[in-house]
């Protein structure tokens, strides 16, 4: 398994796209930290970046990579190797290299310019989001054999989690504004990993605004260490669910 993982890793690095991704993140975060002057503000802008571009790039890159290495996987399947192992090493190879790029590109500037608890949460959130969206990309790719269709599904997934979901929830909140919605909102945000990650960082960032009204309630529910652990646990669940289901499909289906 280590050998396959190594091969996948080399393949990705030779590809140079990950290298470009690292440079892009690095330039952007260094630029943001030098531009604003205020590290809080830079972390805020980085949060937007992490929540928008990282899922997009992860999901698109992972989907295309999966389809591109289809022949290689077919070759491996012909050997006496467990399919689950092949799938796991493919997944770890892609997710690992992308999150490595993220740690280099965003983590280093954050450590250099704005090392804080918020920065750490931002990093952890970014890594989790990478893993989650790579898993989703693999799910999209095993569902269909058609490359164009697969990328389409992946993009739709990204669109749904990054944009549409929040719109739907806001609409629901607005429609049912006469009812006590505090706990419902909390449950709804747990159903979207992007929102979950955003809230973990936000609870440390927009402290003043969140101290008002319902914000205070969320702060008391989510502000403690225990609940941060719980939130990251939920994110882990978000990694596991798409990964396990796609592995199931991959190991059962006729290639």
């Amino acid at each position, binding site marked *: 398994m280590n050998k396959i993982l190594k091969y996948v890793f080399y393949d990705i690095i030779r590809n140079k796209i990950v290298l470009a991704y690292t440079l892009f993140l690095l330039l952007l975060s260094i630029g943001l930290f030098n531009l604003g002057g*205020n590290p*809080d*503000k830079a972390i*805020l802008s980085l*949060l*937007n970046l992490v*929540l*928008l571009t990282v899922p997009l790039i992860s999901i698109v890159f992972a989907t295309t990579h999966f389809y591109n290495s289809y022949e290689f996987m077919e070759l491996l399947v012909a050997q006496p190797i467990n399919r689950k192992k092949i799938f796991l090493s493919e997944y770890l190879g892609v997710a690992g290299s992308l999150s490595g790029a993220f740690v280099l590109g965003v983590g280093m500037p954050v450590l250099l310019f704005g090392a804080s608890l918020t920065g750490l949460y931002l990093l952890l959130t970014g890594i989790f989001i990478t893993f989650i969206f790579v898993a989703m990309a693999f799910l999209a790719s095993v569902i269909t054999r058609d490359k164009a269709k697969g990328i389409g599904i992946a993009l739709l997934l990204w669109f749904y989690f*990054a*944009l549409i979901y*929040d*719109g739907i*929830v*806001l609409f629901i*909140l*607005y429609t049912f*504004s006469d009812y006590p*919605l*505090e706990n*419902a*909102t*909390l449950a709804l*945000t747990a159903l979207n990993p992007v*929102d979950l990650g*955003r*809230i973990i960082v*936000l609870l440390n960032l*927009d*402290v*003043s*605004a*969140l*101290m*008002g*009204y*319902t*914000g*205070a*309630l*969320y702060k008391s529910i989510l502000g403690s260490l225990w609940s941060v652990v719980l939130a990251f646990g939920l994110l882990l669940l978000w990694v596991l669910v798409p990964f396990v289901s796609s592995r199931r499909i991959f190991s059962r289906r006729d290639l």
Partner: protein
Amino acid sequence: MRDLSKHTTFILATLVLLLLAPLAYGSTLRVCESCEYTSIRQAVAKAKPGDTVLIDGGVYQEHGIEINKPITIVGRNNPVIDGNFKGQIVTVTADNVTIEGLTIKNIATSYTRDDAAIRVIERSNIRILNNTIQKTYFGIYLQNSENCVIKGNTVIGQDVTGLNESALGNAIHLWYCDNTVISNNRVEGHRDGIYLEFVKDSEIKDNLSQANQRYGLHFMFSDRNVYTHNIFRKNGAGVAVMYTKGIRMEHNTFEGNWGAAAYGLLLKEISNSVIRNNTFRRNTTGIYMESSSRLDIKQNEFDRNGWAIRLLSSCIQDTFRLNNFTGNSFDVSTNGNPTMNLFEHNYWDKYSGYDLDKDRIGDVPYRPVSLYSMLVEQVPPSVMFMRSFMVDLMDNIEKVLPSFIPENLVDEQPMMRKIDYDNDRKLTQVVR
């Protein structure tokens, strides 16, 4: 020569009178362990009008000291009066009394009597200077008194976390007192730091009010007062001012007032007043305004608040000019459509317009109320979606094609750069 001798007599007489002056001023009664008087109450009872009671260092277990003649009480070497939680400690029932340099402590919470460390009842020209008051129910309590000075006192109660409002008194409490000066005091750990009710034409300056259970400063029906250079920090609900007109608040700092119902400054039915050069930093709400009209809010600094200004629709004819808004989660929010308020020449860090003619004033108007802030006002749980991409998108679309946000809440001439009040006087003069 006759003229000269006449003058000499006159000068001599003056000199003699000057020499005798301290005698007329009164004698000094000393209180200490080895002195003629060992208790303050004794000395006060013996003192004649105009005398000075000098209290030397040591601990005096006394309460119920009534000062019923115009005398001066001075503490030297930090004397401590310990009330042992038995009742009110100093009651002033005479005019022209000075109380200086004492440490007064330990008064029990009582729900039937408002026991205070120093209470003044219907008197005038009282001076309360440089005292330290610890662990009392009320600190300094003035009722129906005029022309008093409360200066340089430290009033420290207890840690108020988890305590009920009714179990605490106020540090400095004034009721029907005109022309009072309250300055350089430090008050903390009480219900309200400074409480004024029906107090007119007074001056409140250079005070530090922090860590109080409810408000740092609380006043009602107190017209024409001046508040300058005070610091209000980390109070339960900030500063609340109500039903008043003609006040001036300048160079004050409101910071760290956090909580579900906390404000930097809460204004309710305030009119014809000036709020200038204040700093609002890290409050849940910088200024909350309800039914307030004709206010001049100018050159203030709003930094990192949740809401910089919450302007309810009952406010009219308020002007906001030359203020700096930086790092606030929401700049201005409102619950309806307030009319006839003017925003002009403010600096907004969220402004993204341009300045073609280089006059440092943006060419595109800025709308400080965002669609999302109105949504949060209506549906509080949606605060969880702050900084979501969807929300940013909504706000930007609304900015291009405003349809929901109040049309007249707009800064037609926003500043391009942050206004620096120390170095940029020329600019502010030009703009003025």
